[in-house]
């Protein structure tokens, strides 16, 4: 079944239901409608980072300080922050939930069958790192948002949510 666009309003409801207090982000074209709502929200703070490496470390610092952050990046940023994901997220045992946009994905194909390496390599890389991932291919998958926080806390490590289609 083809990936379906998730309306940003539905996404926001899932993020609020998960108790997210901060969204630590590097902008992602794929999630721009969600980003617009996040930046306008008064109950969720956005922290804008220059690099995804920073986003990992800022998220960890927020967790130390008792906050509940969600990290929002795109797949290229995942590749850029591998060392901090390993050194902070995995070695530091931080329950960081990452919302990763699969920009440019062919919605008719599974991500690992995509013609573009940025989409195709995301899941295999996360598997290599031992980071669980869930694919959000429609509103029916939004239950994974809250569940990702539970899973991250239970395993004391990062969990990835892959945004399959451009948000609307």
């Amino acid at each position, binding site marked *: 079944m083809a990936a379906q666009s998730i309306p940003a309003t539905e996404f926001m409801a899932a993020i609020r239901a998960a108790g997210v207090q901060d969204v630590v982000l590097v902008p992602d074209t794929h999630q721009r409608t969600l980003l617009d709502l996040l930046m306008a929200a008064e109950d969720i703070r956005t922290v804008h980072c220059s690099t995804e490496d920073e986003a990992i*470390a800022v998220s960890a*610092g*927020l967790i130390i300080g008792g906050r509940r952050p969600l990290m929002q990046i795109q797949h290229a940023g995942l590749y850029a922050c591998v060392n901090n994901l390993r050194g*902070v997220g995995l*070695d530091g045992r931080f329950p960081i939930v990452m919302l990763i946009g699969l920009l440019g994905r062919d919605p008719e194909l599974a991500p690992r069958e995509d013609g573009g390496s940025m989409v195709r390599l995301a899941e295999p890389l996360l598997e290599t790192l031992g980071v669980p991932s869930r694919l959000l291919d429609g509103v029916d998958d939004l239950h994974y948002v809250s569940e990702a926080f539970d899973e991250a806390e239970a395993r004391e490590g990062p969990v990835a949510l892959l945004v399959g289609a451009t948000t609307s």
Partner: protein
Amino acid sequence: MSERELTEQDGGGGRMSLESALDVLAAHWVDQVVVGTMTANGAWMQRAPGDLNLACIGFMGGASALGLGVALAQPQREVWVIDGDGSLMMQLGSLGTIAGAAPENFVHFVIHNGVYETSGAQPLPSQERVDFAAMAAGAGYQQTASFSEAEELDAALDDLLAAPGPILIELRTRPGGKFFAARPTPPGAVPALARMWPPVAARLAE
């Protein structure tokens, strides 16, 4: 004392030692969360042991962003980052991120000795030419300062710390010849950050 004698005596063109700089910081430390990196880590924890220290080991360049997260989460608690020059150069964009987030409780010390000390004192690509205080001011930090002498640092620090942040204080030090041959985390050991952050989190939750 001639300039030549002074240089030979301190070995670094008039720059203070890392230890003397950290002595000053420790004398002014109260209950700040401290994120240390590289050479400064061990030396700092000898001076101010306790459950408010975090170590940036294995993710070089991440100290400033880690400290930023703590500062944003705990605006009533001052956060000190004791960064290295090579470390900060790896995540230089963090200056802009910190300036943009504008935490008033954030103090960014940068040990500037011009070398990658832990790997054998190889020179930084920037050699001695970088001015971290000027870069932080350009990025938008509220306060910046630079010191080469421990006495001057000591005399100025209270006033600097009383001002709203973010603040960057460059500490121009001479290389100390501390080459670390040991693995950052011995096999089977819990990594430093995983050991250190839960007690800090517990303390901050009190």
